[in-house]
């Protein structure tokens, strides 16, 4: 062995040479201190909350007394989940800001409650599955109140209604009417969403609709845009059609994706805000507060204004299918 310094581990070597008890204890203390530092760092990270776009403490859900509404008001922060891959409902700008119809609606709700919004971005199926464990307070994410979701989530009244439609590759010519031409075709949809339930004949939402697609070959994706991307590969390459919100499909077409919407909307989805039934603090007062704010926003025309801003038309009135 040449030199001890060459090994590059001065600390370890030192303790190896120091046979005095006191010095050894000091060393052990240092090691303990560094362990504590690591743990402290972890705690800081967990306190900073999970993955929200904006900074800020996620303290509202931490046990404590009072119901959920009270906790939100005390902390001054309403933690809202959103899936920012759906323009014009929800998306992020270059600077990381959240924008869109859902975003504006949530911020208006928070404003009327006198609190700030903190965004969280869990994946869609995690939001719809309920049991949020107090990680966030509210979903304003264009969610359809299906019976399955009603089992785990409280819903506000619908804040708008979106037509669900089918699209095919733009080179396709034999699918023109979804009511007859989609039978037996391979259709892409997002997993655990209403379009999948519709194709399975298991949709159960307020409103009138008919199941017109027989024997579809359903392909599920993590999100609508992945399905649209696969459809764009070519007619019948991976998919024959995609079912999604009319506006998601139109938005894709506008950004240059070679798809086209066919026929009339298959059904209209009422879309509402949701709150976890199993929230650690009693969610009922928050549900009532959010519901009455949404009714207020219907009456004073705020929702109509926001709908016209993002969609160009008023989607906030119930439409017949």
């Amino acid at each position: 062995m040449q030199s001890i310094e060459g090994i590059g581990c001065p600390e370890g070597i030192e303790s190896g040479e120091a046979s005095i008890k006191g010095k050894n204890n000091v060393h052990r203390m240092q090691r303990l201190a560094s362990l504590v530092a690591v743990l402290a760092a972890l705690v800081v990270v967990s306190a900073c909350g999970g993955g929200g776009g904006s900074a800020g403490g996620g303290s509202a859900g931490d046990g404590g007394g009072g119901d959920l509404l009270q906790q939100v008001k005390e902390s001054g922060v309403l933690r809202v989940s959103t899936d920012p891959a759906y323009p014009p409902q929800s998306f992020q700008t270059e600077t990381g800001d959240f924008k869109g119809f859902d975003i504006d609606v949530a911020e208006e709700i928070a404003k009327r409650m006198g609190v700030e919004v903190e965004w969280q971005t869990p994946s869609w199926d995690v939001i719809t599955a309920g049991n949020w464990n107090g990680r966030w307070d509210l979903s304003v994410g264009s969610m359809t109140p299906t019976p399955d979701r009603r089992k785990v989530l409280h819903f506000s009244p619908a804040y708008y209604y979106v037509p669900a439609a089918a699209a095919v590759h733009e080179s396709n010519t034999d699918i023109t009417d979804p009511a007859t031409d989609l039978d037996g075709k391979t259709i892409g949809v997002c997993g655990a969403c209403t379009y999948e339930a519709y194709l399975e004949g298991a949709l159960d939402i307020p409103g009138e609709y008919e199941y017109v697609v027989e024997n579809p070959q359903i392909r599920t994706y993590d999100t609508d845009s992945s399905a649209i991307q696969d459809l764009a590969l070519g007619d019948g390459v991976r998919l024959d059609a995609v079912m999604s919100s009319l506006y998601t499909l139109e938005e894709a077409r506008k950004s240059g994706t070679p798809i086209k919407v066919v026929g009339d909307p298959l059904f209209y989805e009422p879309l509402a805000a949701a709150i976890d039934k199993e929230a650690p603090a009693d969610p009922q007062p928050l549900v009532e507060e959010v519901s009455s704010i949404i009714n207020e926003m219907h009456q004073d025309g705020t929702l109509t204004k926001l709908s016209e801003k993002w969609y160009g038309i008023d989607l906030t009135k119930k439409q017949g299918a």
Partner: protein
Amino acid sequence: MVWALIFVALAVLFVAFQFDTAFMLQWLPFILAGVPLTILISVLGILLAIPLALLGALGRLSANPVFNGISGFYVSFVRGTPLIVQIFFIYLGLPQLAQYAPGPLQNLFILGTITSGVLALGINYGAYMAEIFRAGIQSVGHGQIEAAQALGMTRAQTMRRIVLPQAIRVIIPPTGNEFIAMIKDSSLVGIVGTQELFFRASKIGRQYFQNLETLVVAAMIYWALTSIFSYFQGRLERRLATGYVRERGGPHGH
């Protein structure tokens, strides 16, 4: 030279396929903004993995059947299950157990995305690195241990003063490699909704239906990150080897 040709060929392909470089540049800052989180997760992950790996290695080498059994199970189970399953287990699975925990402890079961990710990465890499640590410890010659015992040191003292300081020389280079691998694996934490590098790239790609562009941007950033750390890793490795290289510049290391 070969690399230069590859780059030229790729550049030609990019142009031929009408790569939207303006779009890539437009979103580069947004995707880059995920880098600090990617590095934070990886650094905390490796800091957690190191003590776990040391415990795991000591357990594997221990004659105590309980300690040996626990660490054997830890290494085998964690290495035998996918990292993504472990992340989901901690983020989505653990909270289901919170109801059985006494009140104040419940929050320990409900972890944020970043904490979940750091825990999963740390536990996962700790199991892999336990083998590295074990090899490092076993690389210390047996004569040294006998000599230490002859001097009257206890087993713990021998481990602390003689074996570990020398084992570290063997352990540090592969640990650096593990850190570099972890930078890449931290992308899995994006799947539970942490706004790190990969999450940002994939969201923007989906939103504008330009996955290829944003994924190339993400790949280039990961590559740059791992290249930078590999460079430092190489320097560290050379520095640690200095005491053991007999002929400067010669091919015969020890």
